């Protein structure tokens, strides 16, 4: 019996994913966005093989040189090859983006599920806490956290992640509230399932669609925030190749070497735009009711 039950479950899940994929495929923009994201991920993974020079190799070429065949995106004030730095930068940005969203989604999801499931006083207290977090502008909260803890990679991820907690908490809480009273939860309780099991097995799967959509859009906004903080000197420190801090270095040479500010910003815009287009498409595909 158990074997058969599992088989049915697996089969249904696959057909669900297939259905979503079929709906997503129609949306050309979303597919294009997904392709760009996959390409960039590949670029980040294979950076050592793709980059023509080491990201921190000084005097790889002349200083502040414009684009040329040897250095397609030019070189910076230390003679470092900018193409190589942009390629390696993808690693940091995607890494920060995903980890920060992981922190936000896991903490926020957990808080939301617990308060939504139990309700009552704990719900009240935690949601007031979320109100407090929401009362401080997200970027400014992140700035304060990094400013206090010190500017480095780990603190940057914590800062961006923490500032994203409320949005996941709200989404999961709303879903948890809406399924809490339904019969399948009652049934699970009747067969003696523990609260934790009900939350993990019955509540969370019901909020997966909005969490996935919000996470996709969340990675985009996390990448933007992280780059902004690094640009302000409150994130990744030089010489690590990070797009935001590359921009802030290039800024001093805008007059003579505009390529130093142009390319890193362009790639941030492309990544964020792709993630947003894909996230939008995903939302339509996951929830056909929202499609107009």
């Amino acid at each position, binding site marked *: 019996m158990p074997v058969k039950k599992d088989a049915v479950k697996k089969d249904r899940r696959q057909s669900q994913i297939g259905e979503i994929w079929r709906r997503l495929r129609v949306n050309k923009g979303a597919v294009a966005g997904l392709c760009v994201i996959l390409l960039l991920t590949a670029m980040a993974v294979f950076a050592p093989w793709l980059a023509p020079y080491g990201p921190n190799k000084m005097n790889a070429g002349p200083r502040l040189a414009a684009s040329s065949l040897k250095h397609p995106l030019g070189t910076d004030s230390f003679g470092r090859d900018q193409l190589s730095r942009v390629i390696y930068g993808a690693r940091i940005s995607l890494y920060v983006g995903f980890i920060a969203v992981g922190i936000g989604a896991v903490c926020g999801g957990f808080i939301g599920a617990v308060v939504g499931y139990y309700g009552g006083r704990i719900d009240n207290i935690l949601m007031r806490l979320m*109100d407090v977090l929401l*009362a401080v502008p997200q970027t400014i909260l992140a700035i304060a956290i990094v400013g206090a803890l010190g500017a480095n990679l780990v603190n940057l991820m914590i800062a961006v992640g923490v500032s994203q907690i409320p949005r996941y908490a709200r989404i999961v809480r709303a879903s948890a509230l809406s399924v809490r009273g339904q019969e399948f939860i009652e049934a699970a309780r009747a067969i003696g399932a523990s609260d934790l099991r009900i939350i993990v097995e019955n509540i969370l799967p019901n909020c997966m669609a909005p969490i996935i959509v919000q996470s996709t859009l969340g990675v985009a906004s996390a990448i933007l925030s992280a780059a902004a903080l690094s640009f*302000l000197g409150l994130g990744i420190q030089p010489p690590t190749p990070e797009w935001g801090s590359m921009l802030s270095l290039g800024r001093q040479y805008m007059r003579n070497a505009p390529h130093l500010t142009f390319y890193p910003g362009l790639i941030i815009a492309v990544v964020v735009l792709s993630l947003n287009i894909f996230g939008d498409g995903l939302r339509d595909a996951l929830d056909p009711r929202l499609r107009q």
Partner: protein
Amino acid sequence: MLRYIFKRIVFLVPVLLGVSILIFVIIHLAPGDPAETLLGPSATAQDLAELREQLGLDKSLVLQYFTFLTNTLKGDFGRSIRTNNSVLEELLDRFEPSLMLAIFSMTLAVAAGIPLGVLAALRQNTWVDTLCNFVALLGFSLPGFWLGLMLMLLFSIMVPILPSSGYGEWKQLIMPTVVLATNTTAVIARMTRSSMLEVVRQDYVRTAKAKGLNGRLILLRHIMSNVLIPVVTVVGLHFGHMLGGVVITETVFSIPGVGRLIIDAIRFQDYPVVQGGILFFAFCLSLVNLGVDLIYALLDPRIKAQYRAG
């Protein structure tokens, strides 16, 4: 209605109290010792102890918080470690540029975003709609600091018609306003479009059409008044995001506003200023949200009715 307003204001108190605790805790997580930073490496242990006592750093954290809270309530935000000026004075000094920037940007965003959204919705599923959507997504995705630098490159370096930085004349506000408004414009346009698509399908719109009212009148009287309700909410929700943008825009364009003050204060570990500045922003955000809630109640008769009955 008065009861509603009163309830909203009372609700602000615990939130702001919570914010003050949150900011206080975050700032005091800082590993560095402000006394050491101030006096430099040559300071003696006695000097350090004296300064700590003077700044109240030797007290327990809870005690420090209550001192901070009572002082804040009296309007005393402490003194800047760097300049020794009152923090409140420094904040008020820097308030005008930030306020101007926020007002101009919000005006531009509303003026550009709503027509863009209406246009997209009226021409749903045509190339106009697709284009508007793409423009909105693009505006939503462009990093503000990069957009700022690119505008600077275009209009200050390549075709030098606008000053690249500073504050004082109206020309200097053009680029920062555009940069700060871009993101909000996109959000407003998207919200307007989806809200509009929902409203045009409502029965009362069909009734209005059936009565033979002309299209423009339906659009203005019946559709827009309902479209605007969610748009107002989104403007309020997005205001916090905009305050974050203020910090970045002010840094890019060297505008001496509150955002720039906070960033400079963080670099100098001038934590009373950081604390006061963030609290100030949180306060502004709460006020705007309060205002939005009130406008919302005025626009939406359902809320008014709820409070009249109960």
